[in-house]
């Protein structure tokens, strides 16, 4: 009885220590060394200084910030709208819609990256062909900086919106109905009910989804890797990709580790800020 709980958690804790905590600490040490081929020399904060002056790092950071400021709020807004619709007594075929919108979530990132690459192919892709039927001129998806960003945003939105909507829906269904009834008696219209009852009720899961989307965006790798290769002209280069390039294409482990730590610090700071703004006051 005394020992039993430790034995239950031991495998998880031991594996976590070996394959997560130890590498996390090791990574920090690596970030203080300069890598020249197989040779490693202590360099203090040189890697971090290099990072601060590296235009590509700032480009990747700006691209990531752009996705966070434009794509994430749009996606979460659509997800809230979907959840409210799913929860509405007016809607038919609820189960079908829930499943349909959730389905993209089970598709692997590489698979849907490739699929979107083909669908959005400027010459002969299904999307441009369809738009062409309505007289829309050929859109240079993936080859123009702005359209490539939109393409990555579309792919992300397709993949994650339904998942977020289902999380919101579960929360809405758990909200006490009498708040709505009281608001209706007070004569509040649909919009006011949404604003004063629905949105505040969603706050805890709103925080959860905002934090998850932020972490996901900062780590973004697969979609741009497969869909755009970070291009054109680095318009879709993300921090995750820049880290991979330095670590496993140029084998500059020290510099890649410094990028990883910068990433971790940014995530920590944003997480704290988001908790401050969206967290419960209590």
């Amino acid at each position, binding site marked *: *009885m005394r020992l*039993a*709980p430790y*034995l239950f*958690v031991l*495998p*998880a*804790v031991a*594996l*976590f220590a070996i*394959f*997560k905590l130890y*590498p*996390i600490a*090791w*990574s920090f040490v*690596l970030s203080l060394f300069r890598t020249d081929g197989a040779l490693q020399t202590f360099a203090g904060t040189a890697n971090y200084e290099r990072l601060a002056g590296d235009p590509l790092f700032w480009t990747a950071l700006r691209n990531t910030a752009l996705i966070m400021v434009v794509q994430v709020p749009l996606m979460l807004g659509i997800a809230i709208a979907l959840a409210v619709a799913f929860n509405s007594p007016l*809607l*038919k*075929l609820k189960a*079908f*819609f829930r499943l*349909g*919108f959730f*389905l993209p979530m*089970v*598709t*692997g*990132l*590489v*698979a*849907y990256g*490739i*699929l979107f*690459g*083909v669908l959005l192919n400027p010459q*002969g*892709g*299904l999307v441009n062909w369809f738009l062409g039927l309505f007289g829309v001129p050929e859109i240079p998806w993936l080859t123009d900086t702005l359209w490539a960003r939109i393409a990555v945003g579309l792919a992300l939105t397709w993949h994650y919106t339904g998942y977020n909507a*289902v*999380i919101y829906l*579960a929360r809405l269904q*758990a909200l006490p109905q009498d708040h709505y009834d009281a608001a209706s008696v007070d004569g509040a219209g649909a919009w006011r009910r949404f604003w004063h009852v629905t949105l505040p009720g969603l706050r*805890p*899961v709103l925080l959860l989804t905002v934090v998850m989307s932020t972490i996901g965006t900062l*780590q973004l*790798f*697969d979609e741009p890797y497969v869909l755009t290769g970070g291009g054109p002209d680095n318009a879709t280069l993300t921090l*995750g990709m820049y*880290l991979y390039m330095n*670590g*496993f294409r140029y084998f500059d*482990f020290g510099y*890649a*580790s410094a990028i*990883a730590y910068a*990433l971790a610090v940014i*995530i*920590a700071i944003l*997480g704290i800020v988001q908790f401050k703004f969206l967290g419960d006051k209590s």
Partner: protein
Amino acid sequence: MKKVMLTSTLLITVTVVLVPFYWLAIAGTHSTGDIFGSPPPLLPGGHLLENLANLEEGIGFSRTVLNSLLISLIYTILSGAVCTLAGYGFAKYSFKGRELLFGLLMLGLVIPSQVTLVPLFKMMLALDWLNTYQAIVLPNLALPFGIFLMRQSMSALPDELLAAGRADGCGELRLFIRIVLPPMRPALAALGIYLFLYQWNDFVWPLIALRTKDAYTIPLAIASLQGATETDYGQILAGTAVAALPMAVLFLLLQRHFVSGLLAGAVKE
């Protein structure tokens, strides 16, 4: 009127969302020329077997599928065991250091996995484990989300049930197997599907740790085809269909367990 508007708006939107699935199933059965033809193919074609044969010849696709299946299965079983044991330990016992250990594990939810990539690569290189199944399976066995999910589910188990078992003279391990696990079946199903999907679709770490063609998993294989000089999209999309469509079907069959099981973890505060 409102009713019709709402339902038809969603019907149009969901069609847009589902078209890529339909088109993926169609495109893999055509040749590259047809796929980009005008108009694009909207019905199944006759090139599926040829595309699969090309995949087999080019990259040994059957080996790739076998790798993906075995890695995902082994991972699901082992990680399922690790997460379930830990979730139970954290939910149903109070012991010294519980909050600290659990907090440490949950740190894994917010620390970007990229931080561990370089050291893990060096570790696998030193152990001579690159291109092996264990290199892929071991590092993520203690999956923080899985542990969190199981702890949430286990907390709902009434303590009286455990007390009754102990009164009957059940040892702790027997108690776990005989009394705790059976009512946990829905949660275990959700965890199992989640773990399988996670491993089946995982890309970055396998991309780093699996460097030879015969060690590739499906995502690596189809991504590698895309870089080829003359990209054969018929092949790639047939491979992509094999990667994505079985998971969609699996999900549709088991969705009841999956969605409710996952939400049990996400929505409770």
